[in-house]
């Protein structure tokens, strides 16, 4: 099997400080040097409807991750760890936030493939897809490095950012979670994130 290369957040401008990323207080995620506004981009849901990210998630805690279903390591581990925690939450609490997975491999991640794959982790995860141009625009709007294939033939891999972007109810991202965030950390942080930066 081919070796998989995934770019990590350390390569991204948002967390490259002189002293390196710092933990966000009592959270396990890393504090962003500056809060960034909830990005504006429009993609397509697995049902084929248009999804305006900023409008549809405004005022809500939102976990945003870019990945692909053929990813052999980072994507399944990240989604499994989030899903292991979100599936345990009472339904009322679960309805208070969104988990959004945007494919970086639209050719292979058809709705028929992406839907069941996401449902294995959490049936409430919102899967989004789009054209190559739309997906590139979404990644640029989110401030992450744009994903690309290692080649265009056969069982290719996709280089993609590996962090989970977290937008708070104040419509800004103050913190992000790199690959390696554990279930226990998500379990401890999600309840805090629901009320942090929310004015509650």
């Amino acid at each position, binding site marked *: 099997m081919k070796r998989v290369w995934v770019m990590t957040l350390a390569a991204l401008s948002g967390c490259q400080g002189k002293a390196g990323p710092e933990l966000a207080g009592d959270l396990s995620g890393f504090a962003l040097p500056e809060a960034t506004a909830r990005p504006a981009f429009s993609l397509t849901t697995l049902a084929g409807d248009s999804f305006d990210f900023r409008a549809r998630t405004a005022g809500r805690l939102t976990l945003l991750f870019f990945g692909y279903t053929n990813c*052999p390591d980072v994507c399944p581990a990240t989604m499994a760890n989030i899903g292991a925690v979100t599936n345990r939450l009472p339904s009322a609490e679960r309805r208070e936030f969104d988990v959004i997975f945007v494919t970086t491999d639209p050719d292979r991640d058809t709705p028929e493939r992406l839907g069941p794959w996401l449902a294995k982790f959490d049936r409430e995860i919102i899967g989004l897809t789009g054209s190559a141009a739309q997906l590139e625009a979404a990644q640029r709007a989110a401030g992450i490095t744009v994903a690309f294939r290692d080649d265009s033939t056969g069982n290719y891999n996709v280089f993609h950012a590996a962090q989970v972007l977290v937008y708070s109810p104040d419509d800004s991202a103050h913190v992000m979670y790199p690959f390696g965030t554990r279930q*226990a950390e998500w379990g401890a942080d999600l309840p805090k994130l629901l009320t942090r930066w929310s004015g509650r």
Partner: protein
Amino acid sequence: MTWWCAATGQPWSWAWRAYPGVWLFIGLLALLYWRFGRTTGGTGSRWFAAGLVLLWLALDWPLGALGGYLASAHTGQYILIALAAPPLLLLGLRDRAAQAGAGAARWLRTLAGPVPAFLGYNLIMLGTHVPEVVDGLMVSQLGSFAIDLLWLIGGLMLWWPVVAPPALQRLSPPLAMAYLFIQTIPAIFPAAFLVFADYPLYRLYELAPRVSEGYTPRYDHQVAGLLMKIVGDPVVWIGIGVVFFRWANAERRKDLAAAGR
């Protein structure tokens, strides 16, 4: 060249891989036994060979390699290395130990005491299941080798009080059975943590590339904890059974001898 199985973080593949360090290790043990450990006659060589086979199965591909991806495979290795292989290896060395000189016999008899064996085995067993130790050591070949070696040493300590030749034994059969049973108790703690923890204990296995999509880290941890007790304990119970039946046979022979007198 990868010499010893360790956690690589690479996607899992069922393609066979060579681990020459494992072959060298098994070969070295066989060589040392052939040179110093075997005795003429008896079945010691067969026991030792059986122990080596179990050790090889635990350390080499695929189980050894899977031990870097799955907590349950890691526990399978533990059962083979620390619980199943050592009594067979020691049975192979039993006759040679019986012939040991006075100096060697003294420390072999000391090691056959239940207290050093209990402390030695359980310190190793508990210490090598601490999450920080597993997460820290399993990511390097040397660290993984250290864990495997410690398990083997711990297993030899566990079984020696029971397998040692009569001249070196310090436990009567009833005490040996009680000793073996007590040795299974401390493993309840890591097993319970693995089964009942809200979240996976080991970072390594929680974040490792998936071997099978449906086999989640939490399920993997739970299987590991169950294996430790449901498979690990019966291996020790077999030892208890052997001690019991040998004791019963010995008593029967004594009774027959007394009746025939």
